[in-house]
């Protein structure tokens, strides 16, 4: 493996720079600012200083008088903070999953929902919302959508694999489209039988963090952490895979195994993210491409920077979702899609130069 890694570094077509310290610091600062804005901005006016003192009072050994009222304390630490944390985790995850899929499938328009994650999760969530919302717990919908997402991708993978290794990349994408169409049909069929639950289902499908709790953070964080670590460790392999299977194989990489590992990791993380946030569109496309445009096309830069920038982007999108209409929530998927669709069009036009 060490030999392979050394060879990859000298691969002729991978000339792009890795992550520079400056780019890393800028991305980290962006995320930090987003987190602070996320905590400080809301429909209730709460001073940043009071929030800061309140945060310090949680640090062991630091004795600071915190001046937040009981209600403000609840709002900041029980309502806003889990939202911010979850938006950061989900945004980061979707961004690196999108980047990884784009590398593995060598298609700049791939998103994290490529292999049927969205359809499967949507179907699982719809079933849970309709049939288990009275008997279930707050974990029922996340678990059902997670299960649906994993099941859908497993079927997609089995379908794609059946055509043989030679055409697997293209077959997987087609199988994913098939799976997405099929699950969407079943999901629509079920929701049409229950028009009284339409609002709740659409609200879930469009995604959001209005109901986020620390439980949700705890539920998805392990999967996202695992997935992010695996993808981070494969950033050099992604560089080579994005050039071509033959080139990767000639450098000693087991292409099939590497691709499977990356797809499984990205899917697991995406499914966990989707299960607690619904279907948030375009993060997985906008963020990696921005990094490619601004910093480098190398996955050594794209993976870590996408995580930081994706996290910051979704935290800010969530701030917009909860403050645009003072007190009324706008589904976050509407905001990311509103920003993402024009960007998608630009990427589409310039995609040849972005591979």
């Amino acid at each position, binding site marked *: 493996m060490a030999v392979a890694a050394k060879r990859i570094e000298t691969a002729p077509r991978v000339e792009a720079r890795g992550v520079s310290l400056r780019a890393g610091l800028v991305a980290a600062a962006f995320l930090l600012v987003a987190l602070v804005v996320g905590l400080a901005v809301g429909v209730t006016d709460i001073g940043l200083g009071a929030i800061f003192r309140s945060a310090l009072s949680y640090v062991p050994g630091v004795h600071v008088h915190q001046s937040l009222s009981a209600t403000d304390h609840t709002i900041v630490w029980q309502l806003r903070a889990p939202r911010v944390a979850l938006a950061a985790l989900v945004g980061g995850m979707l961004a690196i999953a999108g980047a990884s899929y784009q590398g593995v499938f060598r298609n700049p328009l791939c998103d994290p929902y490529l292999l049927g994650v969205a359809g499967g999760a949507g179907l699982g969530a719809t079933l849970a919302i309709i049939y288990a*919302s*009275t*008997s279930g717990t707050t974990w029922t919908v996340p678990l059902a959508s997670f299960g649906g997402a994993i099941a859908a991708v497993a079927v997609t993978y089995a379908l794609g694999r059946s055509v043989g290794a030679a055409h697997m990349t293209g077959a997987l994408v087609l199988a994913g489209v098939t799976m997405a169409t099929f699950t969407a049909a079943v999901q629509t069929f079920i929701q049409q039988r229950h*028009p*009284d639950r339409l*609002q709740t289902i659409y609200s879930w499908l469009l995604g959001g963090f209005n109901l986020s709790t620390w439980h949700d953070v705890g539920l998805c964080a392990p999967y996202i952490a695992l997935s992010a670590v695996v993808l981070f460790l494969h950033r050099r392999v992604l560089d080579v895979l994005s050039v071509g299977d033959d080139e990767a194989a000639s450098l000693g990489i087991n292409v099939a195994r590497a691709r499977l590992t990356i797809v499984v990791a990205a899917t697991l993380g995406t499914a966990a993210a989707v299960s607690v946030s619904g279907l948030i569109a375009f993060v997985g496309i906008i963020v990696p491409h921005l990094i490619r445009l601004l910093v480098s096309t190398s996955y050594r830069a794209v993976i870590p920077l996408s995580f930081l920038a994706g996290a910051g982007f979704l935290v800010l999108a969530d701030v917009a979702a909860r403050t645009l209409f003072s*007190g009324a929530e706008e589904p976050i998927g509407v905001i990311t899609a509103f920003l993402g669709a024009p960007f998608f069009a630009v990427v589409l036009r310039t995609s040849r130069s972005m591979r």
Partner: protein
Amino acid sequence: MHRTAFAFLVALAVALVTLSFSAAAPARQARTYHRIISLSPTITEDLFKIGAGDRVIAVDQDSSYPASAPRTNLSGYTPNVESIAGYHPDLVLISYNPQGFAGKLRDLGIKVVMEPAAQDLTQAYSEIYGLGQLTGHQITAASVVHWMKRRMTEIVASVPPLRRHLRVYHELDQTYYSATSNTFIGSIYKRFGFTNIADGPGQAAHTQYPQLSNEYIVAANPQIIVLADTKCCGQNAATVAARPGWGGIRAVVRHRVVGVSDDIASRWGPRIVVFAKAVAAIAKPH
């Protein structure tokens, strides 16, 4: 002498009433319908309340009340013209007209009357009157409306004036969709004089049914919470109290969280009186 005169007057009155009824009967018969289909749960409730239930041959799948209504697989949301026509109705009553299906029924010679979702009690009353006319039950329809008006006045009056300015949060589902004062259900709260916390966000987002932000609800600190998601989503006072951050909300602390039937709270029929009574009970001093 007095007794004879009294008997004569009574006989005259009875004769007059009988005459007027028999004279009116043929005219009314010509305008009434006997094979009615209702594709709206509210219309179904109205029809049975005014005594026209025996003319109803089929109701849609969501018409869950009264239990004696002939419930079928017909849908008011995704209606199928052929299956409706298969019942050979002479009148189809709807409150929603997706893809202009009413026009297709009319092409088949079937009378279709639309009674849309009422915006307030006045419209709800006039729909009941209208149904009375269509079914020849004007008198019972009028008495149902009279009874509703009287009960609503009594129920509102039962809440002391000092408690008529409470902040109310009406929950449609557990993702915090709510209804503003411009909706039918909101108009009931308005009658009590309550402040609806959904009004501000609804106005900002230009919708009658805004999805409220969790933070906004906690900050608005409602004094009454009415849960219209008991049936769909299993919500109750205990599940509300268990929501992170909701333990300090005034309504939760003072035990003024009430669950109502989702069906009653989403319809504009006579059972709205039951809803108003439940709201009044939670608003009164303990």
